[in-house]
């Protein structure tokens, strides 16, 4: 385990040095992600200034929902955006390299880089959450802060697992980005609105099949005191459990994929 950690650190350090060269890109990224998300939230703001609430959620509660998701997205991308490269490695045959080295291929893939430019999501997300916290007049106790951090951590792991599972499909289909990018609009919907407005089938889908709802909705139910809205009273607290279960599933798919990849010998 210690060895794994040392290797990971070495990988990350090398790429950190490479990354320093791309400061301007990072700055442009921050401007970009801020513009786009501000526009999104402003539009919801215009609508809610007329309609007041959506399914009982006020504007600042929506802000909380949206920006919690942005933090999760940022953290997951910092650590795991290179999972998306998997299909390219498989297609071009460079994945063989990963298998020849005496280090877990998954570690090599994740250790390519800490993608620091996604810190912009973190900054933006934190500002959003802070504004929501103030405007909603929240006063979290110790335990609620811990719950917030646990939920955040679980969500990041869960999103990572989901992306790993979808990307691992490339072992069978060679291309996996269509699977990942087909979920974009589902993610958009989950990110911006309380999922109950989309009906029960949708709620089930984003809870049990593509569990995006654990990345902002269920944590928000706990942290905003809306637990009663969940289809089951345990679900708002289930982010850590979901993270564990989906990590195991994702890892199993990944292992199956690798075994299959070896057997084809391409």
């Amino acid at each position: 385990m210690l060895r794994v950690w040392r290797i990971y650190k070495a990988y990350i350090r090398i790429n950190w040095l490479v990354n320093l060269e791309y400061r301007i890109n990072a700055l442009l990224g921050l401007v970009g992600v801020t513009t786009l998300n501000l526009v999104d939230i402003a539009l919801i703001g215009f609508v809610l200034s007329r309609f007041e609430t959506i399914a009982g959620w006020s504007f600042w509660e929506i802000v909380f929902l949206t920006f919690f998701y942005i933090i999760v997205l940022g953290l997951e991308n910092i650590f795991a955006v290179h999972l998306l490269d998997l299909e390219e490695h498989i297609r071009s045959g460079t994945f063989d390299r990963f298998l020849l080295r005496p280090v877990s291929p998954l570690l090599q893939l994740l250790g390519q880089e800490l993608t620091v430019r996604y810190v912009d999501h973190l900054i933006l997300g934190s500002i959003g959450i802070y504004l929501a916290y103030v405007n909603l007049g929240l006063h979290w106790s110790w335990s609620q802060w811990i719950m917030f951090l646990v939920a955040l951590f679980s969500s990041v792991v869960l999103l990572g697992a989901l992306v790993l599972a979808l990307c691992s499909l490339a072992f069978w289909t060679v291309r996996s980005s269509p699977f990942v990018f087909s979920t974009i609009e589902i993610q958009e919907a989950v990110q911006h609105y309380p999922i109950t407005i989309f009906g029960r089938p949708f709620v089930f889908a984003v809870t049990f099949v593509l569990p995006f709802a654990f990345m902002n909705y269920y944590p928000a139910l706990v942290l905003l005191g809306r637990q009663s809205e969940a289809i089951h009273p345990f679900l708002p607290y289930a982010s850590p459990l979901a993270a564990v279960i989906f990590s195991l599933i994702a890892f199993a798919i990944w292992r199956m994929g690798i075994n299959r990849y070896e057997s084809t010998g391409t």
Partner: protein
Amino acid sequence: MWWPKSPDRQISMFSVTISSIIRRPISVVFAFAKIAFQTRIAYRSAYWMTLINMLVRMFAVGAVWDILMRSKPDVTDINRAAMISYGMLAVVLAQVLTWWDGPHVYVIDRIRQGTITTDLRWPIYFPIQIFARSLGDSLAALITCVIPGYLFGLVLLGLQPPVSLAAASLFLCSLVFSYVLMFQLNFLLGLIGFYTLRITGVGHFYHGIITLFSGVVVPLWLFPPALRAIANMLPFSGLFSTPVSVYIGKLTGIDGGLRLFHQATWTLILSIIIGLVWRRTYHYISVQGG
């Protein structure tokens, strides 16, 4: 023709060939459309991805307006069905009125690969050539995404047909202007690429502006009054707000005519700007390459 003619070396050098192509502009567009179709067939998974995302978005947008309009039906003077139609139609039309993809993306790719020189050597005035390309692309998108999406909406998601025959025909007129406007804005953005070699930074900003001011997500009449006044003057309101408002019957008679006039005016202004900017850019390239 909306585009300005300019005495351009590109044309005069190839005056023999151009006459034969100008005579058959339709066939050029269809040739591009054929290429676009073939690309879509070659990248079938990308097509399914686009289609799934569009349908999910239509469903989501419909659900949002549905719950909002049920909670407060008298916020605007149109009914729930019309509001849902507005949202869904905008989503569908966004497949041909694209701002994240389109001529600017094509131009910048070609500039970065250096293959833009091939395009410039074509015996067709560059903006027209790129327009024909976009038109071909959009024709493919119309048949593979817009029409299926629209029918899906009509049958399953509660998208309403146009309120009247008059609204339908005015909508189609307005849509033509929207299409040209979208192309012109995209093309101008692409021209920036000739100077900067990248449009990522400006691109984000552009994306934000269009999303905010075009009415693609939220109809402009729900904006705060001051912002609505500004949005209505800008060219972006001609992209989605005008045609879709006409479609649902929110915009009729004189008001509708005025909004179409607004679209036409901006089309003209942008044509002139494109003519001037392109002439400068063309000389800039000649100097660079010469």
